[in-house]
């Protein structure tokens, strides 16, 4: 340990030269590109939103998965954030009712890019066993989901496995937002007008441009 530190110090000082330096560099330094490094850093410092919907929440990130036995801190995601503006991962842990769906969508829209979503449990992935009037049959209907974790409820291990899958995904294509990933240009909330009135001229133009992109693709 000590000798390694000494060698590192030597290198930084410029004391190592020639073959010795080359060997040192070969041993110690990993070459990569910036994107990959950024993806690696991002994937290991995820701030999940502390968000629980139903039964799955007890087994998932807000509760059991952060406690000692499962310890999501091993994957660098123990810093739960209560505000969507500070979080970059939302875990839909539970059933999505028709009353809750617009709120989840709004939370998701408030999160800053890049952002990811895990749908935990059968309910939020597909409606699960509750095929009835009150439950949205799958959160995919109103927001993009990156990883689905099956189970009712999934074990905390399964959540962690899904989480590591997400990390791989982040390392794979780091810099695109979800709109690029899913080809979803034109779904921006402001562009649709909606209850708050007409979109601004700029927004309408951006919307048209985005539509263009999709149609041409």
């Amino acid at each position: 340990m000590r000798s390694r530190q000494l060698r590192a110090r030597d290198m930084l000082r410029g004391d190592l030269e020639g073959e010795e330096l080359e060997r040192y560099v070969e041993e110690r330094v990993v070459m990569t590109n910036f994107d990959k490094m950024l993806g690696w850093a991002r994937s290991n410092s995820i701030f999940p939103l502390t968000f629980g919907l139903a039964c799955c929440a007890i087994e998932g990130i807000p509760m059991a998965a952060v406690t000692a036995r499962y310890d999501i801190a091993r994957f660098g995601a123990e810093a739960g954030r209560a505000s969507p503006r500070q979080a970059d991962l939302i875990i839909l842990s539970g059933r999505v009712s028709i009353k809750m769906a617009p709120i989840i969508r709004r939370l998701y829209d408030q999160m800053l890019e890049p952002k990811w979503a895990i749908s935990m449990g059968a309910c939020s992935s597909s409606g699960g066993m509750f095929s009835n009037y009150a439950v949205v049959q799958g959160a995919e209907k109103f927001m993009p989901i990156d990883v689905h974790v099956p189970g009712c409820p999934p074990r905390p291990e399964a959540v962690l496995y899904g989480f590591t899958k997400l990390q791989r995904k982040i390392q794979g294509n780091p810099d695109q937002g979800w709109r690029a990933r899913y080809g979803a240009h034109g779904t921006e909330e402001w562009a649709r007008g909606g209850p708050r009135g007409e979109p601004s001229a700029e927004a309408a133009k951006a919307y048209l441009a985005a539509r263009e992109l999709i149609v041409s693709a």
Partner: protein
Amino acid sequence: MAELAERTEVMTVNIGPHHPATHGVLRLVVDLEGEVVKDLRPIIGYVHTGIEKSCEDKSYWKVIPFVERMDYVSYFFQMEAFCGAVERMIELEIPPRAKYLRTIFLELNRIHSHLVWLGTTALDLGAISMLWYCFRERERILDLFEMATGQRMHTRYFQVGGVIEDIPLGFEAKLREFIADMPVRVGQYQALLDRNEVFLSRTKGTGIVSRERLLELGVTGPLLRAAGEPWDLRKAFDYLAYPEMDFKIPVGTVGDNYDRYRVRVAEMVESTRIVEQALDALPEGPFIADDRKYVLPPRSELSTSMESLIHHFKLVTEGYRVGPGELYYAIESPRGELGCFVLADGSAKPARVHFRDPSFVNLQAFRDMSVGSYIADMICSLGMLDPILGGVDR
């Protein structure tokens, strides 16, 4: 001073439905004057799942997993409420071993539920480490559940007629280990909280509601007992093995948040005692009733007996029929009186399944607990009220 008072105005604050302190997706619209809560309206329904409607579409034995998912921390209680109601309707007596096994699992579930409550509520009050301690014990209970039933949560262990399978080998030893540990652990929690100045000053004297008012509002469970009313359905009514058990009902005196905390913690110890007694007295014998009209025949018989095969086929495809009638059956869940109303119309599917969920009714007391107090105390009261939103919204 007078000028200042004139300048304060009532501010309406929306808390939730996504808020870490609301224990789920509860939304509160609070009128604040400065820091003091003037009025409050809980808005619920954000996890309304339509379970009661879905139950009408399923045969009786398929309803059990649905009702479990209402109050997702006390799933065994939901199962017992529903299975017990159906058993009473078809007048099926369950064997003594099943009664004792059910008692054991119900009480373990009660401990589990209180542990989740204690961990999260203490977390809200700033005692973060409690979450880790409580979930350590919770994992042990879940291990026991998993050992016996194969699932950690939503076990579907109770059947109409008994339980689905006997406890496995080695379960008893593990359970005994847990029982021996639990009172010590509860002592540790108390050591952490009981003399913690912050915890005491936040809980003592806050959220007081008189017992008459609580009764008017239909509040049951630890909340009512903390106000000094020793009302517990386990003692009042005769169900499962509770009449044979020797246990006490902890009651509080003033009914503030501190009493609520003490009552629940004491209940954990009492539950441990019940589990121990039930385990000691666990009778031998069948674990499920032997009525082929309602209960699946054992697996081993299927390959030898044609009759069993027919019964099995009939039960699985169509389910059993329950004669017309209606019944309300209530048990004591960790949060109070959990009632199940079943209306049967003679077919293989219930015509209506309604749950009187204690969290739903208890939530009405929240306004009384919080109006006039500080907003910080409101959060404390909400934690001590312990609503499970899955149960509130169903």
